[in-house]
């Protein structure tokens, strides 16, 4: 698997938000459940817009959700 330069805390944040499902998160930001799974697994780096939408769903600033591995 090609691991990207961006890590994320989406799995943890979903757990802390009442075990929100990937499908529900995907529905709220307008992507498929499989794309959320790919983002969580580091197989896809989302667009800036999708990243902001995810952060907004969890009520967190962007850098608490996504981290640049460099």
């Amino acid at each position, binding site marked *: *698997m*090609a*691991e*990207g*330069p*961006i890590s994320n805390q989406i799995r943890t944040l979903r757990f802390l938000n009442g075990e929100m499902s990937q499908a529900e998160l995907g529905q709220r930001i*307008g*992507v*498929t459940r*499989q*794309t959320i799974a*790919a983002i969580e*697994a*580091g*197989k*896809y*780096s*989302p*667009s800036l817009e*999708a990243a902001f939408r995810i952060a907004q769903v969890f009520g967190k600033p962007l850098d608490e959700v996504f981290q640049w591995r460099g």
Partner: protein
Amino acid sequence: MPHQEKSAWLALAAMLAAYVPFFAYAAVSPPGPPPYLRVLAALAAVSVLRLLILGVGHLVFRAQSPQDARAPADERDRAIARRAASIAYYLLMAAALGIGCFMPFYTGGWDIVRATLLAVVAVEIARCVLIVVDYRRGWHG
């Protein structure tokens, strides 16, 4: 598995199932006199076969997971499709240049027709393979 990836696998399987036998047939059998109606009829038959495989496959996908089948392509699907199409475009350009600029100096009509068909099919197969690989390996834009 995302619906778009399933579709790419299906398109790949349909292309291989339809066109590998066709090109095997076209390679070993003489085309006959122009306008090569026998071979063109075989091409039409395998193209119908391909459409049938695609149609049945999509019906099965829709029955298995209707929600996934209804969901529109999202940004990841579009990014993967765009990358595959842009690489396939350059492959098609290279094939067109090879066939159009070099083959007329070395060979005749039927070989050029066959090479053109083969190039189109090969590029479409390459596009499907690129899509599947990007879904499997991951894609980071």
